[in-house]
């Protein structure tokens, strides 16, 4: 059941995400694509370009914890451990091939009016919907 409070929470959260990406762009000139940030952390090169990404990821976790304590989140987990592992493998390989995820293509790319990102976003929403539809019918 969709509660109307999620309209406000969605908008407020979305604005915070937009501010985060804008701060990173205007101050550092970098794009807030999380899959890309994680990938760059797995490259064996250390330096300031590594450290801002590390601090971003630490901030991500701490910021989430603070919000969880202050306003609470909508807690749930993936359907099962096996599903989570398979889903993780698909998300990791897919975002690597596509060069971005919901943040890089969805938020940043669409804000830049990038056609590549629009194509990616429409594609992953479509196959995501298909996956949910199938898993609901197959009792997943």
């Amino acid at each position, binding site marked *: 059941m*969709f509660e109307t409070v*999620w*309209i406000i*929470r*969605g908008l*407020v959260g*979305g604005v915070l*995400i*937009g501010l*985060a*990406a*804008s*701060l990173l*762009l*205007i*101050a550092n*000139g*970098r794009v807030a694509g999380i899959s890309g940030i*994680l990938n760059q952390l*797995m490259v064996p090169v250390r330096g*300031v370009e590594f*450290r801002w990404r590390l*601090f*971003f*990821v630490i*901030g*991500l*976790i*701490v*910021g*989430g*914890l603070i*919000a969880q304590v202050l306003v609470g*989140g909508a*807690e749930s*987990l*993936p359907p099962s451990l096996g599903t*989570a*592992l398979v*889903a*993780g*493998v698909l*998300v*990791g390989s897919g975002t*690597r091939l596509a060069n971005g995820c919901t*943040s890089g293509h969805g*938020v*940043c790319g*669409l804000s830049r009016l990038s056609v*590549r990102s629009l*194509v990616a*976003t429409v594609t*992953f*929403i479509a*196959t*995501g*919907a298909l*996956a*949910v539809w199938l898993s*609901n019918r197959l009792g997943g």
Partner: protein
Amino acid sequence: MNQGKEIQNETMFQMVGAIAGLLFGAGLVISGMTSPEKVRGFLDFTGKWDPTLIFVMGGAVGVHFFAYRFIRGKQSPLFARAFQVPTRRDIEPKLVIGAAIFGIGWGLGGYCPGPAIVSLAQGSHVVLAFVVGMLASSWVVGKLDAQFEARKKACAETAKLQASSTGQQHATR
């Protein structure tokens, strides 16, 4: 003024990384996007549809769009020498195939990379399994892709070399 080091102010540069992360993580939790149930609810167009993600995307893009407007006339960001913004415009098969694979995983697990990382704080082995699978597969696919691209380039160069040295029209690998 913009000569010299790429990073003009290292302390601020890293501080911005941390603050952006804090805001981003808080935004994901406040908007409910760290909940696989809500994300899968958004993707469930034929069932009990949950439109929250639309408002999240609307809020984020609504703000960030103006940031791109703002930097259009700027030579450089505040703390670095140059903007590093993607400029590719080609729609290649890898983009579409990758996005399709990502979407399936997103729908099955209900996590994209950001929310999965934030949810690590829950201390659940289910979240850990997702993140380990995600990072490991991205690493492996990245390595394979780099090898594939290198081989493709080498093949193209060999073909060109053969064609020019022997004068043959068709070159094998």
